[in-house]
């Protein structure tokens, strides 16, 4: 019955494993971009002492963070569906990092929820610690996990990848909030955003330089290739251009170029990996992929749904577009 519907011994299209490599990284990119600005909001929240401003930040974050976080689950489960060995090894070989990351996410998600539940300074302070701490550690540990994936055990590149993800999250968080708040607050956010942009671009250069010098994970040759150079150049252009736009108060345009940074970071990850998908053991995309029938099935059932999901996000962000209204996290 199935044979007539789906090819069993051949992929629907010859390059389906490569397409899935792209789709899995697309989901990772969506996560890094979308939840990235949530993390940024959480970190910038630490710089606010005024209750009204804190509430405004939470109101900007409230309607979307949960949906954003689902991209992590989409990434993980699609990785499992298409490349089960990579999912297993990545998480099992980095046990404490992975568990630390999910616990950081837990505190980040719970903090704002708790904050609403009691009008008590002490209580709110603890809830804020959870929110801010989770927002710092989640991108740091996720970045380190990505670093371990790309560069195997080398310590400095791994830490730099983590710090880089923290910095780029601050950039997008600042730009997202600046585009949705009043000018005075936006101007303050701009300062943090530009500082983080400089830190991020500097971090990427140092990271790639270190990897070239030490050849961590055997990635030196890839880094010195044309496509990587192009991605780095585009990142610098987006960072510098975005900062100039921010200076001129064009926050919406700044947001667009800020969001280009984590997008380009994901492209960089893809370039550093391909055609390998798990550098620590040198496993190739073609070796790690599941059998044709299984991949054809998740393609036929999954891809249309993925398009619908993108429409949901368009709808969600459409409903909550424009300046942040009201205050606070609760409905």
């Amino acid at each position: 019955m199935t044979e007539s519907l789906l090819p069993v011994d051949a992929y629907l299209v010859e390059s389906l494993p490569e397409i899935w490599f792209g789709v899995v990284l697309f989901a990772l990119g969506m996560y890094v971009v979308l939840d990235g600005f949530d993390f940024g909001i959480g970190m910038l929240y630490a710089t606010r002492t005024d209750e009204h401003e804190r509430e405004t930040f939470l109101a900007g974050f409230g309607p979307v963070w949960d949906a954003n976080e689902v991209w992590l689950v989409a990434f993980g489960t699609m990785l499992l569906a298409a490349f089960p060995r990579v999912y297993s090894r990545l998480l099992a070989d980095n046990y404490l990092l992975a568990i630390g990351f999910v616990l950081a996410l837990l505190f980040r998600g719970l903090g704002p929820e708790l904050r609403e539940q009691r009008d008590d300074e002490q209580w709110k302070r603890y809830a804020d610690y959870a929110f801010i701490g989770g927002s710092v550690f989640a991108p740091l540990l996720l970045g380190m996990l990505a670093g371990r994936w790309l560069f195997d055990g080398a310590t400095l590149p791994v830490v730099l990848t983590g710090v880089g993800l923290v910095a780029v999250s601050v950039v997008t968080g600042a730009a997202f909030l600046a585009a949705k708040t009043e000018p005075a607050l936006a101007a303050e956010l701009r300062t943090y955003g530009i500082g983080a942009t400089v830190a991020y671009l500097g971090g990427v250069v140092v990271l790639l330089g270190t990897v070239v010098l030490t050849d961590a994970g055997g990635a030196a040759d890839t880094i010195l290739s044309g496509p990587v150079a192009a991605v780095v150049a585009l990142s610098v252009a987006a960072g510098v251009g975005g900062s100039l736009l921010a200076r001129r108060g064009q926050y919406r345009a700044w947001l667009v170029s800020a969001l280009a940074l984590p997008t380009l970071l994901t492209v960089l990850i893809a370039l550093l990996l391909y055609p390998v998908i798990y550098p620590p053991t040198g496993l190739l995309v073609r070796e790690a992929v599941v059998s044709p029938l299984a991949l054809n099935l998740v393609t036929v059932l999954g891809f249309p749904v993925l398009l619908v999901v993108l429409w949901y996000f368009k709808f969600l962000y459409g409903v909550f577009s424009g300046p942040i209204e009201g205050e606070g996290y609760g409905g």
Partner: protein
Amino acid sequence: MSPTPVLTTLDPGVVAFLSAELASRMQFGWTISVHIIFASLSIGLAPFIVYFTWKDVRTNDERYARLRSFWVNVFAAGFVMGTVTGIPMSFQFGTNFPQFSEVAGELIGGPLAFEAKMAFFLEAVFLGVLLYGRDRVRDRTYVLSSVLVGVGAWLSGFWILVVNAWMQTPRGYEMVTRNGMEVAKLTDPFAAFLTPRMTWMYVHMMNASVISVALLVAGVSAYIIWKKPDTDAWNTALKLAVVLLVVSAPFQAIHGDAYGRHVEDTQPQKFAAMEAHYETGQADLHLLAFPKSASALTDPRAENLVTVSLPAVGSFLASGGDFDAEVIGLNEYEENPPVALVFWSFRFMVGLGFLFIGLALWGGYLTYRGRLSDSTRYLKAMIAASPLGYAALLTGWYVTEIGRQPWVIQGELKTSEAVSSTLTGTEATLTLVGFVVVYVGLVLTALYILKWLVREELQSLGVRESSDGRWHGPIPGVSDDD
């Protein structure tokens, strides 16, 4: 039970850590036990949310606005808890049970990815609209959002149970060698996704979620009515919960009975553990079992139990009509699940199930007589019963999951073979302790949030705090003014 040493002593006499396997199993068991409470809260609350939202928008009746607002807040808090506890679940397939993920990847990866894409996104996106978008979208879109949130919750359960049912009755695959490892290759998606267990599990679990939430709604309503009689909204909520219970509680017993027969057919070892049936042969049905000695708690056997049994009816039920049918006993197997946990969990669940039927019929009778909200005794009983649905749901899952041991995939892969070979007992124990501490805090927080929401509700109904309280202690029976 298993030949793996339970304890690996790192530094003799100072600190003893659990083995990686035992710590991983305890960690997964503990985290899923907490997660499933929130997951089933979403499933069971979904029909209430849709109904209240629809009535609120349709009638503009203050009653429904009040109920919608209260239960959407409960739903939202539960959903946040479900999200933050759900992500560690899928991660643990990789961190703690990588061999399982690799062997079963082709079979479980697809359904788990569908769960994320078809269900989880739907729920998360439209909950955002439901919580924050009342003034930003049209009425029709708002009601539709509540429906989509509910559909998301029920679809989520569907795909997760596709995975679990496959682990109980695996099919639609063949074992092949890939990258030097024996893995399952998908050969027939229909057989693999719609295993014989799937329908049984889905119906039983969705209904269990509805029962659990109906008991919770009834308990909260009863408490508020107790504090402030004659509140229209909460009388409506109580009646609705009771009506749902009248339908769902008896149905669960009838369905569960047939489900048990299916388990006997497909997983005889689990069935034998549920009945502590050791010798292959004719089986009695133990309607009630009480321990004769303390040993029965840890090792229930015919010798140490006082049972109210129907001779040979176990055979009759398991075979669908033959009193002499042979029921396979545990002695046939080399390795068995922890029988005591399965045996007592099963009895606990069934006992609670009958209690729920009693409460449902009592409530149904009172509703029929038009005295539902006037019976103090009934209100008290429902307050006390409000967490019991979850107790039944959890013990039911212990029967299912512990009863499948030593297998993680029945007949194909043992749990001990699925555990990470690179994981140390120290790391696993460390994270286990972390999860225990954090999740205890999480559960307490969830209870605190519920308490806080109820207190807010009472204040908005005009009940002054700690005044004219008819409620005095945690257990209704001990209040001193009745």
